């Protein structure tokens, strides 16, 4: 059993090594196991010869950060209501939360494109951010519900009894308790947004250029090595911005290991 687990860990991680080798293998003819010529040529092509790359990286990151904020602003109150309140239609809302996971994105996006054209949101950053948020919401609500369940609402009730107002309670009692969970939900929403392709392509209408928009034509054109460089950039951008985010949050809130989520 233990061996099976380690084999699986190898299968999970070895492809990333393949990806790394792909980006530097300039000449890798068929039966050779390793590339015969290695160079930074593909990186040169992506970063120097294509002036869209850096803009796309910035757009991808800004978009993912906006999506994460929009998602959290909707998910946190919703998760709070679903965990600590009883209200009419709660079971129905719980099913609603699942729908964006279950109903295929393409079906929702095709329908939405027309509404978005009408609202003037097609081809805009905001329109793309809204559609990405829709698909991140179920995951964020799920995480935040677990968090609110683990934290409970006794301290909040205590603060309310002592006369604190809702804004004060949220800032001084709720927020410090849920910060690690917020970070987890932020990370997941960010990751979902930065990996989107077809929603960005359809709602962005070719005007919102993210890394995935630049990447996909290279796969279709058979230039998988250049696509690999974009992939490394995509993963690198995500890892870098998320660790920066975590670093910033940790400077303001010292928290121990995440015990839920």
């Amino acid at each position, binding site marked *: 059993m233990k061996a099976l687990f380690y084999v*699986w860990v190898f299968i999970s991680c070895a492809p990333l090594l*393949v990806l790394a080798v792909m980006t530097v293998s300039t000449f890798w003819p068929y*039966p050779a196991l390793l590339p015969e010529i290695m160079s930074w040529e593909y990186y040169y092509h992506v970063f120097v010869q294509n002036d869209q790359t850096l803009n796309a990286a910035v757009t991808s990151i800004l978009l993912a950060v906006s999506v994460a904020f929009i998602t959290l602003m909707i998910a946190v109150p919703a998760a709070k209501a679903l965990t600590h*309140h009883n209200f009419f239609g709660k079971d129905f809302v719980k099913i609603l939360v699942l729908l964006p996971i279950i109903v295929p994105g393409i079906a*929702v996006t095709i329908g939405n494109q027309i509404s978005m054209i009408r609202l003037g949101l097609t081809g805009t950053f905001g329109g793309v951010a809204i559609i990405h948020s829709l698909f991140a919401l179920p995951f964020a609500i799920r995480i935040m519900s677990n968090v609110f369940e683990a934290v409970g609402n006794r301290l909040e009730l205590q603060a309310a009894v002592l006369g604190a107002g809702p804004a004060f309670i949220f800032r001084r009692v709720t927020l410090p308790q849920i910060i690690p969970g917020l970070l987890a939900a932020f990370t997941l929403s960010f990751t979902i947004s930065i990996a989107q392709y077809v929603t960005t392509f359809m709602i962005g209408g070719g005007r919102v250029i993210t890394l995935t928009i630049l990447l996909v034509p290279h796969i279709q054109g058979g230039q998988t090595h250049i696509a690999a460089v974009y992939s490394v950039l995509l993963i690198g951008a995500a890892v870098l911005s998320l660790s920066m985010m975590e670093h910033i949050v940790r400077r303001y809130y010292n928290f121990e290991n995440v015990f839920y989520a």
Partner: protein
Amino acid sequence: MNKRRLSKITPYILILPFLCMMSFVFAGGLLQAVVQSTGYMPVFGMYDVSLRYYVQLFSNARFMSSLWYTFYIAFVSAALSVSLGVLIAFAVDKSRSGESLSYTLYKVPIIIPHIVVAILVIQIFFQTGIISRILFALNIIQDATDFPLLIYDRGGIGIMLAYLYKQAPFVTLTVFTVLKGLNKKYVQVAQNLGANSFQTVFRVTLPLLAPTILSTFLITFAFAFGAFEIPFLLRSPARLTLPILAYFDYRSPVLAHMPAAMATSVTISVISLSFIVVYMWLLRAMTRRGMEGGGFL
């Protein structure tokens, strides 16, 4: 307004942003698709409302073969992902390496974007890919063409491999979380009563995990059914899954294809929604039989 009344409307205020998002973006999008699937598109001067696009779809051989193909891919990849994922969850549980590095590493595929997974599947499983090169070095094949076509193939093997890589760790993560929290007393009682490890797993642990396994199966199935990127990049030109079919019809310059795309879209949504109904029904049947719930849903 007194405090009591305020606390009564609080949950509705809290849930309002979510409901707005769901009604305007989600339901709004689906409604738009439903309206246009009837052929009602005033922008293009089409005012006839009818169900003929649905009738046309279900009598269209290309659509029907696409429908079954999508079911086949979703079912096989979900069944494989769940089996492998549960097996690895047991392995993780046994190896008790809860804190070690490999415990983090097995989750790596969850965060790799689907597009990147497609690139990797091409590089590894294509006829001139890594596996083919290894077989060549071992003298098992003499030429790249001896290696079977696993990508862009009619059987959709490349697509399913990509799903398996992405989804098995997700299943493991979900099942392992529940497995950790399971009451170990049941297992101990079974062992005390003389059950061997095989019996313990199949008669005690797996039935306890059944609701979780069901919910992860449903999620992986629904995902494979409706996903776009992976079948888009690894498809055979001869066979398309429904989301790809809808996409091509939607982008087709032929105006009459538009309502067809919408009707395909609506069909995909209706099928997906029926998964939830089936799930709820099965879950209720299981809870009646005294199984504990859990899992992602």
